[in-house]
């Protein structure tokens, strides 16, 4: 089997990153969609017990459901805007949690781990409607590691599943 070529790797990684920022932030921005937040994260299984590593403003969040809860209960309204993002392939053959039979290389870029760094702005609305906000917005940087969603890559995989999931997330307000 031919190895993963450089252009396939870049194409698949940048498409994955693009698709990720295009779906993740709108989910945070839309209060009705926030119930889907956990679907963006890697799910620990018995075979692959690894949990996603999440840090928001220096606070370690133990579980994706906690992230969802923070957004549902602490953040009345938020508007995240992606102003810049970049990504790189970390490992073309990410084998964490795979069966021995599945450890070989793969040429379509389906087994990569990808680092994505986003720079943007966010406006948080306050609870009170009468509150006059300066509304300058704050700046943030957020770094993700995306890894393949095994459930979406098998031969019997159901359609519509996310192909990449968050293995690591680090969010910081920088302004």
């Amino acid at each position, binding site marked *: 089997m031919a190895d993963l070529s450089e252009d396939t790797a870049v194409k698949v990684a940048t498409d994955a990153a693009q698709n990720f920022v295009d779906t993740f932030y709108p989910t945070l921005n839309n209060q009705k969609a926030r119930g889907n937040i956990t679907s963006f994260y890697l799910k620990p299984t018995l075979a692959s017990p690894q949990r996603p590593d999440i840090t928001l403003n220096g606070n370690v969040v133990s579980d994706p459901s906690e992230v969802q809860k923070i957004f549902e209960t602490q953040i009345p309204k938020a508007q995240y805007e992606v*102003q810049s993002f970049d990504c790189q392939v970390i490992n073309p053959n990410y084998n964490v949690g795979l069966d021995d039979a599945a450890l070989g290389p793969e040429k379509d870029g389906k087994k990569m781990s990808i680092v994505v760094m986003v720079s943007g702005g966010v406006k948080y609305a306050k609870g009170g409607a009468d509150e006059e906000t300066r509304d300058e917005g704050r700046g943030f940087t957020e770094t993700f590691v995306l890894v393949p969603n095994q459930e979406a890559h098998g031969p019997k995989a159901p359609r519509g599943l996310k192909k990449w999931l968050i293995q690591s997330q680090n969010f910081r307000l920088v302004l």
Partner: protein
Amino acid sequence: MKGDSVIITASSEDIAQIQKLDKFSFAGSVLSIQACDPPSPQAKESGEKEPTVSQAAQEAKDRFRAILAARYDANLKLLNLSALALDAGLRQMGVFDGSTTTSKVFPAMMVVCDSLFKSPQEKRDAIVSVSLADNELADVSAVTTLAQTFPDLKNLDLSGNKFTDIKNLNAWRWKFRHLENLVLTGNPIESQPTLKDELLRRYPNLQIVNGVTLRSPEEIAAAKAIAEATQSPIPIAGPDFRDVSQVGENFIRQFLPLYDNDRSALLGTFYDSQSVYSLSLNLTSPRSHEHSVPIAPWTSYIKYSRNLTKLTHLGARMSRQHKGSQAIQQVWSALPPSRHPELESHADKYLIECHPIPGLTDPSGQSARGVDGLIITMHGEFEDQIETATEKSLRSFSRTFILGPGAPGGPPIRVVSDMLTLRAWAPLALPQISSISPETQSTNDPEQQKREAITMQLVEKTGMTPYYANLCLTETGWDIEQAFIAFTANKDKLPADAFMPGVAR
């Protein structure tokens, strides 16, 4: 903005760029873009008709200089521009006499003012107060350029004018972010009951209105802290730095000075043929009204930017990531030299976080399931070091590194991935210690509350600021005794701002 026209100020390089938009259609209208008379000294260099014009201009400039010099009090650092209409010199030039030149004289005077200083810092040092008293002003439109020339004024006297409503001051709504003292006595507006509240809202550092102290610097600082905290629904905690055997810490300590001083040595120490580097620019990042320093041009960086919101073609996406020390060296040698603040003495200029990640390629080829490494995200600032530049070019950055074990025969620790993103400089949002504001104490997290209590104990014991106490505790695993030992050992190396004001060290 005047009628359908917008007047903007731009550097000569930018003007050439902006002029390319001349005759473009926008929102149904055709734009007409013209360069106005540049009020800069460079104007003299070009054009043959210049001598006669610049002779008159030079004369006017000299007269302005004489007038300004007579009105400057170096002891008080005060530029007294009161009662300009009574100034014999200015009357000759037609300031505020109702003629058509009125609107031009004040801005021209400001331009001359500007030209007297080599840098904004010099200007800030020379002039902290301006008086525009007794100028018959009904609004600030004729004098609005004061805010461009003296954005950092601390004291402003507008007494004895004709302001009737706060709206008359709207052109300065977002200006003068450092204003501490404002005088509006002798204006009809003076009697408005809501005036003071509105002014305090507009000017975050305003303390004194019409000679009455309305709030102290401490109250301002506390209000800011509350505002900051409430603006982030997710509390801003200190850095989460989960290192393994100090690999991350050692890397950062070596990386910063080497990147500034010897990029080839840095590449030899931590990068190999598989390391990947890319750079992306965020040209629309939010900025703070309070710290609106000019943005240094991005010319040297822009051609390398891999901002994927802009860069959509695969070819460009491929060519703007750089694999291997040699390719990275080429880019780094083309980027301007840099100066990062020293990590030990300027810890408050950085936020650096780190945690382990699994599943990196094993460069020795032994483990098919990969090896563990670290992901480090660093936020901070640096300055370009360009000898010819007169102004500082501070930039804010975030940089993510993925570190893993090196290949046999190569560096023991290697950079797998190095991603840099740059944005216009703005001060870093530093962790808020909630004990200074009652509002943020309502955190539900008992762990957080416990940490805050320990932080305050250490603050009392050492006299360090809560921020430094937090740093110290974070590094010692939140053990107050260990933290105190670490403090005692490092006390002499801590910068002055690590301590609460008035604490004897």
